[in-house]
């Protein structure tokens, strides 16, 4: 097939890009080049400056220094719209779609000539043509709210293509996808570059970069570390380039074996509703044993958050009971749950697990401020609080100027260290931990995982809620899969495969696949 865009192939070149924000240099002299016909991955830890660089490219930010050129012509984009007119489209981490509109309406939206009454029939034809060409399965007349996150992402991609994007930037596109959906996405991206388009694929996950990219540019702390051919490198080398030192990511060795029969947490027949009152947890029963790490795999939004909140006492169960160390915990009572030995590390660290604007030391006492010696006769004892905070900061190696620095000024990894420090020090029997490494960089991930394993080794039963299969396989003794509010699989980690878990996460069933 002769491509309709081959005569307009684009090479993007960024030279010496510097972009400063108050207190940080997000891009510090970045050089980057993406050629037509390649998937070029931009790899880097969180905060390395990937999103900033792509925002410079699409005209959302203006660089403080450096130039952007298209086919050797220096360009200045004032806005993403201007960039798109020149063929550069972006799929953001957070989608920008109107929920009540159809797919087609969303795609046409923003077209220059669009009037109040859109002529959708011609557009639908073009969209369908594009969708077939790239094998992107979407129904143009479906409404956005009816679509899964993965489908919404496809709409964003179609939208960029529809508007003539020759260079497509995807910022951490797989963060919201199941493994199967991610594979499907990679197919689409490959077929786009075979057409002479350019794909810039942003990620901090080594495996998927290796799976999809032709070339990889590694960013570290705002600087280009190097650009390498995917064929000539390995995940190990990439990890070293990304972090600046060697990292080991294997299944963590356990000092103490799980004792699944000494049950510390029992969830029996629990139902719960979400914030809008719809049933989110459907008669879930599970147990966690002493020293056992039980993972709940699942795509976000399948009731995991609600389940975690029920166990943590933040959300009352509409049916069923929670038992900790053979004692029933009163329903929906945070303090009772705490006292029973439940620790809860929520997904939203900064605004639920911690108070972003408050100091490190005030956050460390969020659960113990009612108890001696932190407070006495309702009066907080500042000197003791500070001394304990200093000890904790040292023990858990939290990087902070002092203990009165607001949490929000700490890096993601250190934020999580503070939260985990507080929870570990409460000496729980059970920890419910939601996406504990989401958004963290490789070094911090290593640290968090090690801490979780230490906790399990010391006898704590851990209920790990995660979407990250890598993490689940690295940590779990047993894997449950949650889909649409129910548990649809319970597999010892040793017998599970990525494929089988990924399939269950997408709502598939194992037996059907086996036939």
């Amino acid at each position, binding site marked *: 097939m002769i491509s309709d865009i081959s005569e307009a192939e684009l090479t993007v070149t960024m030279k010496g890009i510097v972009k400063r924000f*108050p207190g940080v240099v997000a891009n510090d002299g970045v050089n980057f080049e993406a050629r037509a016909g390649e998937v070029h991955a931009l790899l880097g830890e969180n905060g390395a400056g990937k999103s900033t660089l792509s925002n410079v490219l699409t005209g959302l*930010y*203006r660089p403080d220094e450096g130039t952007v050129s298209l086919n050797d012509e220096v360009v200045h984009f004032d806005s993403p719209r201007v960039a798109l007119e020149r063929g550069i489209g972006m799929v953001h981490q957070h989608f920008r779609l109107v929920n009540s509109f159809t797919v087609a309406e969303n795609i046409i939206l923003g077209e220059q000539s669009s009037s109040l009454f859109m002529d959708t029939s011609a557009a639908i034809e073009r969209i369908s043509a594009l969708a077939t060409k790239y094998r992107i399965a979407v129904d143009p007349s479906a409404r956005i709210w009816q679509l899964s996150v993965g489908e919404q992402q496809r709409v964003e991609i179609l939208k960029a293509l529809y508007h003539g994007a020759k260079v497509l930037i995807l910022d951490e596109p797989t963060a919201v996808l199941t493994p199967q959906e991610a594979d499907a996405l990679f197919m689409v991206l490959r077929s786009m570059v075979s057409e002479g388009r350019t794909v810039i694929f942003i990620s901090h996950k080594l495996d998927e970069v290796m799976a999809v990219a032709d070339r990889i540019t590694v960013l570290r702390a705002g600087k280009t570390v190097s650009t390498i051919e995917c064929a000539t490198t390995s995940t190990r080398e990439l990890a070293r380039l990304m972090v600046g030192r060697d990292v080991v990511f294997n299944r963590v060795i356990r000092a103490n074996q799980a004792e699944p029969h000494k049950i510390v947490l029992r969830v029996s027949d629990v139902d719960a509703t979400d914030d809008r009152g719809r049933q989110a947890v459907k008669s879930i029963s599970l147990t966690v044993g002493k020293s056992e790490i039980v993972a709940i795999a699942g795509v976000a939004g399948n009731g995991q958050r609600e389940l975690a909140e029920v166990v943590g006492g933040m959300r009352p169960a509409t049916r069923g009971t929670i038992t900790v160390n053979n004692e029933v915990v009163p329903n929906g009572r*945070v303090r009772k749950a705490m006292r029973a030995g439940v620790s809860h590390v929520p997904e939203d660290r900064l605004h639920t697990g911690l108070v*972003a604007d408050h100091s490190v030391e005030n956050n460390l006492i*969020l659960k113990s401020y009612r108890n001696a010696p932190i407070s006495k006769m*309702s*009066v907080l004892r500042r000197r003791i609080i500070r001394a304990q905070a200093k000890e904790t900061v040292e023990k858990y190696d939290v990087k902070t100027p002092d203990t009165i620095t607001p949490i929000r*000024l700490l890096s993601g990894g250190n934020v999580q260290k503070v939260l985990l420090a507080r929870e570990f020090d409460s000496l729980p029997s059970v920890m419910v931990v939601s996406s504990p490494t989401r958004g963290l960089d490789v070094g911090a991930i290593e640290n968090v995982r090690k801490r979780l394993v230490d906790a399990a080794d010391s006898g704590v039963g851990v209920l790990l809620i995660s979407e990250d299969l890598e993490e689940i396989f690295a940590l779990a003794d047993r894997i449950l899969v949650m889909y649409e509010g129910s548990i649809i699989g319970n597999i010892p980690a040793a017998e599970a495969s990525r494929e089988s878990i990924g399939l269950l996460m997408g709502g598939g069933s194992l037996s059907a696949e086996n036939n």
Partner: protein
Amino acid sequence: MQSPLRLERRLTQPKWLNWGVPLLSLLGALILGGIVLLATGKNPFSVYARIIERGFASTDAFSRTLISATPFAFTGLAASVAFRMGLINIGGEGQLYLGAIGAAFAGIAFQDQPTAVIIATMIIFGMLFGGAWAAIVGILKAKFSTNEIITSLMLNYVAAIFLDYLIFNSNSYWRDPKSYGFPTGKRLVENAYWYDISIGPIAIPFGFVVAVFVAVIVWFLYSRTRFGYEVGVIASSPSAARYAGIRARWKIITVMALSGALAGLGGASDVGDFRHVLDAKGVQISGYGYTGIVVAALARLNPLSAIFVAVFIGGLSNAGYALQGPDFPSGLVGTLQGLILFTAVAGEILTRYRIKRQNTIADGAIV
């Protein structure tokens, strides 16, 4: 087109802003006020000089300033305690009326008791009435999530009507039956007048002493106790409060009641220190409750600063009374207070944000 200047959120607030902002706000207000004066053909320097003279410069003037400052201190504290939990209580005005009603009731009912007992009951009744009035707002918010700005404001009008009714439209307990023609409240017996405490030549009204005492307690409560800690968590992050098992609803009611009780104490001090009668018109004209919001804003919600700011504002309004006349612009004091609020709010924005020349669109930007 976008403007070439934009605001960018500061990551940290430098310490000097704590005193820099109030001072610069005041200076800004004085300059703006000066421009207004110039425009109306007055010499701003001489007007300001007279304000200083009549507000602060003599011991006599200063004693009177402290009397005016007392209700401002209480309403300023009242606004601060609520704002610090993110509760926008603008009902200090009505809560203060209720406090005045309560205190006047105690002053009349217990007039045969010793002075100390009368003062104590006036304080208690002032706080109870003001607190209960504000608790209505808190309960509505906690139970039905009504917006406290609206309910507290509405209750100001209700309180004003109630106050007028007690004195002008009924033969209530508070109304002096012997006041024909223009109805007034029952005057308190002299035994019920609040003490002055003399330090050298300056007479410090008892209410002011109470205000300082209360400010210290509030400071302690908010920075050193579990209660204050919980309020801080709720204010900064309701979901973290839920996570930690802190019951926000109950706290909303408590803090509103506390705020109202402080405003009510302001009403009590107005009756006990100053008017010695439930003066329905006088207490409404003063606008203590609304000015308390200015005080709180300028003090950046710090209870100890609120005392100083209240003295300053008290001096302004005291000078305003003293200087009233043909050659003194009557609206000046109000205008200055308005300007101070304006510059204080502007200054507050600058403590959180900084002005930057436009060249980027950053996440933290506000338009």
